[in-house]
């Protein structure tokens, strides 16, 4: 065995042993009264969020409001990932972009079955992703999930009709703009709260601006706004990641 493997094995055994050793001290699996499950924090979210935010999906409430600051950076992480990939791989020169235009015209020559299937699926997929986004308050879903699905619809176009085809619908600069707007929508919501005299991301004050009846509903609506922002960014970046990785940054050809 190579020395590196022995080192790795020893490291793994020691770490694993350490982690197994600590499991003895954990509360029983599924214990509703364990410190984590029965903490004041957890109970507060379960019992109070319906009063404080009127959102039935507790995960959405915690994600977009109580820990909204985290989620903003989560969006930033996605944004960074896309940008980082473009920075590492490059985003195509103008000559290559012209080539994209030309090859997009040859779209019709691609495989018919693929294209027709994609034509059928893409609208449904996009519609469903909008549903997932909008219904995040009531069911599993929200900006990330909706955004990923929307991004997937562009990826499907690229798979079926070639990357240039997808790029002619959502160009890289366009996607970057969309991603930036998404983060701006999220951060801007927080900034508006600050301009109205409250702390950053304190949505309740937005009832002055939003068609919301009161502070609670203002939070409810603001969460949707930030989820939409997240969806913008995720959609754009998912597509950028695919486009860059599948073409090694040249933005032509594709699978």
């Amino acid at each position, binding site marked *: 065995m190579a020395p590196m493997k022995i080192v790795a094995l020893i490291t793994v055994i020691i770490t694993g042993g350490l982690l197994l050793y*600590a499991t003895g001290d954990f509360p029983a699996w599924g214990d509703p009264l364990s410190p984590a499950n029965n903490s004041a924090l957890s109970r507060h979210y379960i019992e109070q969020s319906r009063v404080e935010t009127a959102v039935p999906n507790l995960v959405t409430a915690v994600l977009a409001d109580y820990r909204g600051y*985290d989620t903003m950076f989560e969006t930033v992480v996605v944004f960074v990932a896309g940008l980082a990939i473009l920075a590492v791989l490059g985003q195509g020169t103008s000559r290559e972009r012209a080539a994209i235009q030309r090859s997009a015209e040859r779209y019709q020559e691609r495989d018919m079955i693929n294209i027709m299937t994609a034509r059928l699926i893409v609208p449904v997929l996009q519609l469903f992703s909008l549903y997932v986004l909008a219904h995040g308050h009531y069911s599993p879903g929200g900006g990330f999930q909706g955004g990923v699905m929307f991004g997937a619809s562009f990826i499907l176009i690229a798979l079926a009709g070639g990357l240039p085809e997808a790029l002619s619908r959502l160009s890289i600069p366009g996607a970057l703009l969309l991603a930036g707007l998404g983060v701006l929508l999220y951060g801007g919501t927080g900034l508006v709260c600050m301009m109205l005299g409250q*702390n950053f991301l*304190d949505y309740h004050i937005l009832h002055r601006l939003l068609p919301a009846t009161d502070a609670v509903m203002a939070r409810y609506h603001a969460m949707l706004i930030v989820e939409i922002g997240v969806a913008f960014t995720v959609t754009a970046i998912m597509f950028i990641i695919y486009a860059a990785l599948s073409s090694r940054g040249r933005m032509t050809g594709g699978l």
Partner: protein
Amino acid sequence: MVEQFPILIELCPLFGAILIAILGFRMPKLCYPITVLAMALSCAAAIGTFMMMLASPSGTVIYDLSGWGRVNDTAISIEYRVDALSALMLVLISSVAFLNVIYSKVRVAQETPSKIPHFYILYLLLVAGLEGITITNDAFNLYVLVEISSLTGYALIAIGSKRAVISSFNYVIMGTIGASFFLLGVGYLYIKTGTLNMSDIRSIMEAIPDDSKAIKVGFMLIMIGVWVKMAFFPLHGWLPNAYAYAPTATGALMAPLVTKVMIYIMIRMMLSVFGPEYVYETLGWTDVVVTLSTIAIVAGSFFALSRSDLRKMLTYIIVAEVGYMVGGAWLANSQGMTGAIYHLLSDALMTFCLFMVVGIVVSRTGDPKLTAFQGLYRKMPITMVGFTIAALSMIGLPPTCGFFSKWYLLRGGIEAGQYHYVGALLFSSLVNAVLFFRLIEMAYYHGAHAHGEPIRDEDHEQYRMHGADPDSQPKETLANAPWSMLGPMLVVAIGLIALGVFNSTVTEWIGQVVANLNVLEGAN
């Protein structure tokens, strides 16, 4: 508006990045002014926060995001907490980042001309991540921000040369291991305490028996996580190549700040989350960790001695300096901790200054080898003045801040009776002396006379006075660097001396944070 300073520190770079993302790809000329403006505002907000902290009677400023506040003394949303330590770090990070932007304008345009908007966006977000790490009081938020700064860091390194890409990959692997261990450690704390707010974790942990295995392993995981990320020997493997081959501007930002911020996390975890009693007394690992740091210092110094590439040499010095700070923090007395924190500040400035100098030298001579320094004093006097000050500080000579940080660390080491640490510290100072005087000597004398013999005539004096050198290469290639590079470097060089002269003020601020360590000593 005043009470919004803490969040503004973070928002300025964030919105700066968004603005560039929207405008910068169409108008690349706007990237630089936006970045400078964002960093300047962030820096101003950091200073404002610092003032707030000083003015506040408790010495801490709490900023509550999402406006939920505390219910039954539990923080239900993420909050910011600024005490003297984090305020100092914020001022440090924002001012270093601000100066580095100005410094790196020319280099960015030279090194990555096609990726200017990418560079500035990633740069701003990296700074936002580092500042966020410093200011947040939420353990999980800390993880997210660590990942932001890591991701941006990977990319900023990878846009460099061919070698930079492969070192960036190593950094990704090691960084992910480090961050994941940290995340796992936070999970262990969460499973035992049910909260993520660092102050709350601390108060809940008081009730948990000291011999809890999960807490112990959680602490270990967090420590190993940050040690990987700070390149604590022998977990340092990723650092030298990553920083040495990164673009100049990236190296000058990441080398001084990233490892220091990780050390900050370690100190924050030790002081504010686990508490000194737990870390120093219950666990009883101080001897082991101080010994490890001794090894780190000695090993880092040895590696530094054997390098002929300037930036490699500096990166190994960073490895040794990490040992200083880890050791200082684990000496289990307030002097050592003061020294570690003070060294955190001074080492960041020293490393920054040296990386700026190396960046200037490499950009002017095109040679990253030590020999690039030959006879540079004549050709680039201002740069060399900055270099000399930073080098003196690295060696630890008064009145630069390097001397005082060593003073506190040595004092802590002697008080704790850790003489091997004291010895290692002195050894490393001597190694630094050898390393830097070799360079200073080269810069001042080598190559000044190509033929080895001194020139003893009035002509020579005349030449020197008019700035020309009779037997040097043509001057154009070595003309002094632009002021946008020299200015920031000189500011930092002056800062090194100022930080040294006013060290008692700084340590007084630090004293607010390490005061609870003195209680511990009293108990002993």
